[in-house]
């Protein structure tokens, strides 16, 4: 039933996710929706993995109230990291007032790729995070893969900013100011409808973050496999 609604009606169908559930969905044109979906999906997978694998099961107290406070703490940490990334993006040159929602969702997805695995694996414990991200600080293969995926997500995001100034006139890399210009021009507005203009600002960066995360997921097992001789973890 949902399949019948999709392909013909689209101007440009989604590249990776066929639009089973949503009308007129595509990664580039309804990017914010995609960001939300991706974020929720990755969080869910992470939580699922956490519940199934339980990488740090050495929790002494396991009362309900402890779990609840821990969960709440995690939520607060996640929010804090979103705001932190938002501030960093603005400091990096993202617009301060315009496109706040876009920037924030970008911060959310980056948090999903980096903070959520940290929270799952290490819990709301900043000291442990700092330890993992320093030389010789990892103590298990889980932490090792966490390190690799997080760093590759950051690098992907960083590289994702590079296409922004290019003038290839692709919808995913147009600069913010150029977007307004394009929207006023007749061409785009007839193509996308006068009320709807593509939001392009975080697209290249979010795609970069996603690719970086995926690359990290691929690289980390390979890296661990290749370096299995050198890896000697010391338990604390």
């Amino acid at each position, binding site marked *: 039933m949902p399949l019948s609604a999709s392909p013909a009606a689209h101007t440009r169908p989604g590249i990776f996710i066929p639009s089973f559930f949503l009308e007129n969905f595509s990664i580039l044109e309804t990017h914010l929706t995609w960001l939300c979906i991706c974020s929720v999906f990755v969080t869910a997978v992470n939580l699922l993995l956490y519940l199934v694998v339980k990488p740090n099961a050495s929790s002494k107290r396991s009362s309900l109230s402890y779990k609840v406070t821990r969960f709440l703490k995690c939520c607060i940490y996640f929010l804090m990291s979103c705001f932190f990334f938002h501030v960093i993006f603005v400091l990096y*040159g993202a617009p301060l007032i315009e496109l706040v929602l876009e920037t924030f969702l970008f911060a959310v997805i980056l948090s999903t790729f980096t903070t959520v695995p940290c929270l799952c694996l290490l819990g709301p414990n900043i000291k442990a995070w700092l330890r993992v991200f320093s030389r*010789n600080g990892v103590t298990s293969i889980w932490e090792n893969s966490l390190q690799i995926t997080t760093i590759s997500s950051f690098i992907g995001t960083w590289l994702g900013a590079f296409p922004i100034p290019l003038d290839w006139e692709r919808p995913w890399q147009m600069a913010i100011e150029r977007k307004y210009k394009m929207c006023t021009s007749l061409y785009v507005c007839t193509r996308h409808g006068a009320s709807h203009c593509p939001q392009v600002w975080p697209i290249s960066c979010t795609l970069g973050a996603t690719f970086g995360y995926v690359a990290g997921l691929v690289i980390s097992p390979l890296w661990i496999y290749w370096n299995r001789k050198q890896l000697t973890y010391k338990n604390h």
Partner: protein
Amino acid sequence: MVPVCWRSRCASGRRSRMQKISVLLFLAWVCFLFYAGIALFTSGFLLTRLELTNHSSCQEPPGPGSLPWGSQGKPGACWMASRFSRLVLVLIDALRFDFAQPQPSHSPGEPPVSLPFLGKLNCLQRILEIQPHHARLYQSKADPPTTTMQRLKALTTGSLPTFIDAGSNFASHAIVEDNLIKQLASAGRRVVFMGDDTWKDLFPGAFSQAFFFPSFNVRDLHTVDNGILEHLYPTMDSGEWDMLIAHFLGVDHCGHKYGPHHPEMAKKLSQMDQVIQGLVERLENDTLLVVIGDHGMTMTGDHGGDSELEISAALFLYSPKALFPGAPPEEPEIVPQISLVPTLALLLGLPIPFGNIGEVMAELFSEVEDSQSHSSALAQASALHLNAQQVSRFLHTYSAAAQDLQVKELHRLQTLFNKASADYQRLLQRPQGPEAALQTVITELQQFLRGVRAMCIQSWARFSLGRMAGGAALMAAACFLCLLVSQWATSPGFCFRPLLTLMACGLAGTIVCAGLLTTTGLKLDPVVLGAMAAAGSLLPFLWKAWAGWGSRRPLVALLPIPGPVLLFLLIRFAAFFSDSFVVAEARATPFLLGSLILLLIAQLHWEGKLLPPKLLTIPRLCFSASTGPPRHNGTHALGLGVGLLLCIRLAGLFHRCPEETPACHSSPWLSPLASMVGGRAKNLWYGACVGALVALLAAVRLWLRRYSNLKSPEPSVLFVRWGLPLMALGTAAYWALASGADEAPPRLRALVAGASVVLPRAVAGLAASGLMLLLWRPVTVLVKATTGAPRTRTVLTPFSGPPTSRADLDYVVPQIYRHMQEEFRGRLERTKSQGPLTVAACHLGSVYSAAMVTALTLLAFPLLLLHAERISLVFLLLFLQSFLLLHLLAAGIPITTPGPFTVPWQAVSAWALMATQTFYSMGHQPVFPAIHWHAAFVGFPEGHGSSTWLPALLVGANTFASHLLFAVGCPLLLLWPFLCENQGPRKRWQPLGRNEAEARVRPEEEEEPLMEMRLRDAPHHFNAALLQLSLKYLFVLGIQILACALAASILRRHLMVWKVFAPKFIFEAMGFIVSSVGLFLGIALVMRVDGAVSSWFRQLVLAQQR
């Protein structure tokens, strides 16, 4: 204990001086290498067009065949019979096309468009409506560069001034090519000129009567125009002229000062409207009126580039007798600007100037009285044919003199011309030929003329590939040399002598070669000679590097730059090859800088230097991984980083948009306060600017006080205490006058004018005298000479064995120093037995950086004055962010106490990036229209007369202020870690318990940390470190200029080469030259301070001994 002997250190003073001289010489030589490379590349890249000095003359027709009306023997007929005996040329500078465009009478329902510049030239519209056969409006397209002098050259010679001329806007030279004015003068016509004095330089002595008014002062809207108006109508009525030229500047200056969207523009255009109206009423039947704008202006009122708004200018023709056969078209026709030259020449009965490549506007040569379209077309064809003959003759002469025209295209055009010419001759023999044949001839002739123009535009941007390659290779070799020698300088066994001998060998050999060449009579370009000298002197180095390479050094040592920094440098290098990234550099540089800073922090954390070890749960971390003790805690470094990012972001608010991104809005804060309309906002901004000034001053004084260099009675310190506030006061007063000069009551006008001359000069003079004082007495140290009770000798704890850890070192070094002091004191006591004298030199530890900071502040004030008021906030941010960066970097640089000192690559790269970032946040862009010409009038509101170097210096200082400041401040990178040293060890290591007993024994007043005196204690390493630092900085700058040169040469056929790559190269080259000079001065200043400190020590010894 290391034996330290005072006498031996004194004796080593001479060696140290030799080392300093060799460092400076070597630096100068490396700079020379780069300059030679840049000059060679530039001479190959920015070619000038060959200027022919041939002239057309009446007696000499441009080609074979009879002249159309020559046989009739009319008086005043030359190549063609003259149709007008007199001409009034009204040149309104920067009259954009839409300023003159008739406005459609709007229907009552619509709201009228009320832009200040629209529809103000009503009389043009009226004339066009009433007398459609007498007047015509065209949209003329100027060729870039759209600067006034280039346009004047084009408008009189009919050729295309090339790019390199754009730089000589202030040094106008007489036109050597054939031109309209020269033709008029040689025909005995009287040319009267009034207006812009640029014409005086271009056509010296060509006018029978002239009224020149100074053109340089772009803030002055009325002097030129009112001067013209005073003379225009009397001259016209007197009748003693054949050509009358009036060059009005008000519109252009109004654009520069206020922009086109200001009410002042409406007033100015209305004034011009009245002028044209008055002229039209006075015109006689034999006179043609031409109203022309030499170029347009951008949205902000600037010009010089090639955007649509800049190149579209208005052209209006009017004659009291009917001139045009038909009514004007709905939309005005577009004509190239230089079409006016052959048209006017033939209309006035003059020969077309020899070098003209414009095409006559055929429409003006039709017979109006004769209603037959055939004879009209024939007249047009004959005018076009004359024009084509002249252009063909020019091409022939030019291609014989220079080889830069494409042979194939030339051949094609020649055959086209021959065919058209033959067709034309055939037509002349059969006067009543078919209409279609006539039209074919006209089309062919026009095709030929347009083809020539296109070919010339393309060919006069030809390059000399050999020189470009040679220049780039020279720059690359110089970069390589920087890398190599900076690597050598860090090695412990480095000595200066081989450097000098190699350099001297190369130079001597080259000089001998050059001498031989000149004696053989071979004439050489100085550029080529310089390049040869550079290459010749480079060879011994490269040879030595090649010889020493295989045996000792592994290949990895060749790239000593750490991976991440190498990546950053590569990205920066690659970014110069994309026009998008060059255009977006203003945003890309802060991005890279921010990334580098975050990387630095992440690296510090990764190395475990950021957190105290107990926070990290694994115990082995703090001993095996960390090389030194954590000197800063995590929050401190993080705070520094965030503060830096914040500063960079705030500085980014002062951005100026490149013209390629039309939807981007430049920051309104870049304009001077005088252009603001609201009084309240203006006052608030003024307050903020003065606040920034005061904050800058207070910060510098606070810093100096913190390191206690503010207490000594030295003259330079006194200057810092009293002279700096005076300079700030002068600056603030000047701003107040400049922002409100137009509102001053008339009685005070003279006073205000006088003050706005005196104040900036006074500030600059104060700064210069302050710098002189600093150079004279650079040691800002308070000497306390007190006779007191003899003190007990400090207990020195014996320490044996090699120092094993950082802690030991930190302990041992002060001990050595103290021992030295004791020994010194002991000798004093021996020589002078009565009353022991204690000498306490306070804060000798910051003597170098105090001098640097003082010099930078003194430099910053005059530079600040050259900028618009609100840029002072950027200057404040500049000082703040460089302070933060230095602190952050100091956290990551270990002090290797006795050994060779190094400045890491990331520090140098960050410093260079910050210089670029500040260049942009001061409102600059690497394009010519974005240059702040206002700077030339600071202190010289009346202009400069004929001198050109002073305005060039002022504008250059404005443009490259950030390059200069950062280059001079470069030695701070070396000094700062030593300066930050005193915060760490004392606090952290005393309570640690290891040396508890000794710590208790130490007398408190003796706790003077060594800081920068560590550098002085190892003069050899100090000089090597200075050399290494400056070579690293030159390397980072050098690869930028190399990348620009390579990009410009590889992409020389790119669409954007003249718009993006060539200006970027020129700006980068100028920036490099300014930076290298600044770097040299900074290094020299440090050495001067070092020398002064040495002599100060020596004097102290002498004084004690006496």
